[in-house]
């Protein structure tokens, strides 16, 4: 991975976990994305910043095609996840979502126990293939909760409803339930925006620990967060990518005036 790259328009190589080419997206008649070319490198944390409505979340939600839930969305261009065109005919949406986990803005645990939440995806995917023993489930459960630094806090409450946890714990749980499925990419849509400062710090710290094992693409409104918790940073404005580079470079010496203006808080 070349460190010096600092602009859009990457060539197509296998180095990217997510790669979009000429991605346009319309909500009905409204065009939300314009020719988005984005390359998200494997194994690092890439953050996306930009003012509200600039299309960050839209890009994120396109990467696992959850955007199609809306029904009135149309796209052109292509999105490659781990080398596969996710809009291709031979791609199974279930497999895409298995490889690409997603964390939402508001923690959204299912109204079932902590245990069932963590094992929900695991059971979904593994049960299609084989019978899973209880002991293996327990192992998977503990390992996932340990990875998100939640095991000690909830190990005595595994059979209680997940909706009874604090927001911070809920958000960690929502990340934990992705891990047993063994995704390669984690998409996070402002994962800390519903949390208080302490919760934000705890979740950020946890995300940083996942770095390396997973490719993480994180949308944030919080520039300080992007700055301290990401390797690369993408700045979007009005449905286009303005700048994409190493985080410290983008914040210290932005190439475009729009980026500089946004970072300095002149709008957004």
């Amino acid at each position: 991975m070349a460190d010096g790259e600092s602009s859009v328009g990457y060539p197509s190589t296998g180095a990217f976990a997510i790669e979009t080419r000429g991605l346009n997206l319309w909500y009905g008649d409204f065009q939300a994305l314009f020719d988005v070319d984005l390359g998200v490198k494997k194994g690092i944390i890439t953050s996306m910043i930009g003012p509200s409505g600039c299309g960050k979340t839209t890009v994120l939600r396109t990467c696992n095609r959850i955007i199609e839930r809306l029904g009135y969305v149309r796209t052109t261009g292509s999105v490659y996840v781990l080398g596969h065109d996710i809009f291709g005919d031979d791609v199974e949406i279930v497999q895409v979502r298995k490889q690409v986990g997603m964390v939402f803005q508001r923690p959204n645990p299912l109204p079932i126990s902590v245990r069932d939440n963590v094992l929900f995806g695991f059971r979904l995917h593994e049960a299609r293939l084989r019978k899973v023993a209880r002991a293996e489930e327990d192992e998977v459960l503990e390992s996932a909760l340990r990875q998100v630094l939640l095991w000690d806090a909830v190990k005595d409450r595994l059979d209680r409803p997940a909706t009874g946890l604090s927001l911070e714990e809920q958000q960690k749980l929502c990340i934990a339930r992705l891990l047993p499925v063994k995704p390669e990419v984690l998409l996070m849509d402002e994962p800390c925006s519903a949390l208080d400062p302490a919760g934000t710090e705890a979740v950020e710290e946890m995300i940083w620990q996942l770095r390396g094992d997973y490719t993480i693409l994180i949308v944030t409104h919080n520039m300080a967060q992007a700055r301290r918790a990401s390797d690369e940073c993408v700045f979007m404005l009005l449905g286009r990518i303005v700048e994409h580079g190493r985080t410290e470079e983008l914040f210290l010496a932005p190439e475009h005036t729009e980026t500089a203006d946004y970072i300095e808080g002149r709008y957004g």
Partner: protein
Amino acid sequence: MDRRDAAWYIDKVAQWVVFVGGISAIVFIVGIFVFITKEGLDFVLGPLNLGEFFTSIAWRPTSNNPTYGALALIVGTASVTGFAMLLSVPLSLGAALFIAEFATGKTREVLKVLVEMLAAIPSVVWGFVGMSIMHPLIMRIFDVPLGLGVLNAGLILGLMAAPIMTTIAEDALKAVPDTYREAAEALGATRWEVIFKVVIPASRNGLLAAVLLGVGRGFGETMAVLMASGHAINIPTSPFDSVRALTATIASELGDTVRGGDHWGSLFTLGILLFVVTFVINLTADIVVRGIRKK
């Protein structure tokens, strides 16, 4: 300074009107219960033999030596209701699932309106359908001598109960937050997995309430059952046997009784039984629904 101007009085009057309106439901339901009980009480405390009432099928209130065995009527009501539920529970839960989870836009709106219109069809019309359409149809299809019985009444009652069950079940499904569906889909669940593993478990109470209200509706329905069931006192052994329902018995016999007599009292005793059963069913449904809201 006295502030009792016109607005103050209007306010007071409105308060009273709303209050009276609010408690009238309670007054009426208590009133109905008191009235039915009062009329039936003399009979319950006097000639009624509880053992005979619940175990004998001999309902001969007009005989010289009258007997009041309600077992056949109870079994009649239960069999027709049970049959109706066999039909309407899958039908209406399926319809509710389709409207809530699959149908979009125009289809959805049209279906919702149609289902609500179905609920407004008078029961005598359903009874007419049972007598004039289902009756000959059942005779022809199954080659039986009579098409009025458990099958006919059950089908008609099932179709009658389906709209209300569909509406309530759909409300329950719609009440499941969309974030649950989104979370499950993002984890790679297919549409059916989302429905069976997330939506239905989350709306379990509402769906149960819908079924219970359907049962209550079946129990209390009179005219359609009277017309489609054959109205013969009988313990059914096949779906084609005629039966008689509790409600239908009251409706058909009450006009011919001596007011205050034993026959009159016995019919009110049937009324008490019906009232208690439907009250318990509705109360259970209500408690179950409250269960969801608390969560």
